[in-house]
């Protein structure tokens, strides 16, 4: 038997692009099931706004099962809201009470420019990961569970190593707006995979730093955070009629992959971490729709 929360007031940050100053706007939710997730509550609000001919609130979300790291939101002054160790998508309305006022703000950091409302650009985290280097390798489909017996301690350590899903909450919560937790987590070597007889699961001095990877990580945020030179600032382009970024012309350059023909060959998708809006399936769909 689900209960309902009555009379919620939402104070939500609305900002129309980076140039806009932005402001809080108040919304009322008359009644919502306590089994609704926080994002579902925002969906309900957006449905209502669209029905009234108003602009929906932009917020990031993808898997909604707590593993992708796309959702964000500063809820009542806490990154991902009041529930420990879970992303916003796994926060449910039962954590709130009737008549509550809930304040929702985007992540705030100079490295994370606000794109719209509650949506920020977290590309600097991708650049940190890219700075560590990456390879392209066909690894086939995911193997069936339990085909390779993995001892429990190794599996646990592997889960720990994968715990950071790159949501940016550490940057959002840090009083210094620093990505040190993210960088430290990604800088740790993938020890569980390398662990064998006689090898330790503990990170050891020198691990991960031997190839200069961690140093490249560390130098990356120094450029990104606040002091990124103009030519490296993120830019947004509109693609021309052929679906090409401006300046690439009709003839694809020899060393430039043909983005229009096969987005999967674009350098972006050869990178380990493409921005969330640029995943190849998304580009393919958009291109098919345009044709």
């Amino acid at each position, binding site marked *: 038997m689900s209960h309902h929360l009555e009379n919620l007031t939402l104070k939500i940050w609305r900002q129309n692009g980076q140039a806009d100053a932005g402001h809080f706007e108040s919304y009322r939710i008359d009644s919502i099931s306590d089994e609704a997730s926080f994002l579902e509550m925002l969906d309900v609000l957006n449905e209502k706004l669209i029905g009234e001919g108003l602009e929906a609130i932009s917020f990031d979300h993808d898997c909604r099962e707590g593993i992708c790291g796309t959702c964000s939101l500063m809820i009542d*002054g806490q990154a991902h809201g009041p529930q420990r160790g879970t992303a916003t998508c796994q926060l449910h309305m039962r954590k709130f009470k009737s008549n509550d006022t809930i304040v929702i703000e985007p992540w*705030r950091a100079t490295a994370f420019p606000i794109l719209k409302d509650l949506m920020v650009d977290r590309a600097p985290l991708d650049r940190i990961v890219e*700075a560590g280097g990456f390879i392209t390798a066909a690894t086939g489909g995911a193997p069936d569970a339990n085909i390779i017996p993995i001892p429990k301690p190794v599996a646990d350590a592997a889960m720990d190593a994968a715990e950071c899903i790159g949501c940016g909450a550490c940057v959002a919560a840090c*009083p*210094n707006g620093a990505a040190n937790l993210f960088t430290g987590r990604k800088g740790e070597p993938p020890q569980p995979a390398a662990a064998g007889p006689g090898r330790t699961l503990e990170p050891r001095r020198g691990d991960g730093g031997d190839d200069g990877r961690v140093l490249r990580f560390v130098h990356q945020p120094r450029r990104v*955070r606040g002091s990124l030179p103009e030519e490296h600032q993120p830019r947004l382009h509109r693609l021309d009629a052929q679906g090409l970024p401006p300046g690439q012309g009709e003839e694809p350059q020899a060393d430039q992959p043909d983005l229009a023909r096969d987005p999967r060959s674009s350098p972006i998708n050869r990178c380990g971490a493409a921005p969330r809006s*640029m995943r190849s399936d998304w580009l393919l769909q958009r291109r098919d729709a345009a044709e």
Partner: protein
Amino acid sequence: MAQAIQSRGPVTGTAVTTKKRRKFFLLDLYGTAVGKKYAMAISGIMLVGFVLVHMVGNLKMYLGAEDFNHYAEFLRELLVPILPRTVVLWLLRFGLLAAVGVHIHAAMSLTRLNRKARSVKYQSPRDYQVATFASRTMRWTGIIVFLFVFWHLADLTWGFANNVGVDAADGEFVRGDAYGNVVRSFERVPVAVLYIVANIALGTHLFHGVWSLFQSMGWNNPKFKKWRKNIAIAVSTLVVVGNVSFPIAVLAGIVGK
């Protein structure tokens, strides 16, 4: 069909060659946030060391005027047969001044980095989960302690603040009579209160400073991580209790003429 595409900067850190010549490695290190934190921690260790020794030395007050003034004179005569009188004291003083300079410069540039890293602040109240009150007020407790040190020097080293609000009958600041100067100063209730308040600010500053210097220096091995907080509590409690006891002892008449 409007599509947003982002042109991307160089993929690896090594792809960009910096035109600047390499600086001396210490300056290069100081140019980073981590280097500035090292500077904060190392100068902080020097200053914590001074504060602890200063407090322990002042406990001689409880042994009476003779012992206390003898201790004050001993500081001027450190290593006297080897070096002339007050030379070691001045060397220590210059070391402390340098530590204060580095500590303040690093704090100011870290604050500047901090502001730059979040140029638009959160517009709603934060609900801090990890950052303690002490850590969030480091700038203010630091400024309070810095200003207090000037008063403290004017009161008990230079002496011109020692005579403010004191009856002429009680005498004047006497260079070398450290005991008499302390008693005369703390018999003024507002001054005693000022010392107590400033020392509580110092204790708050020390609590976060001692705790975080382990993190800054990388001394946070899980084996002794749990000791960091205990050490910070012990150091700041020791300093506050010791220092606050002096004005209270004077007001209570335990230490007096």
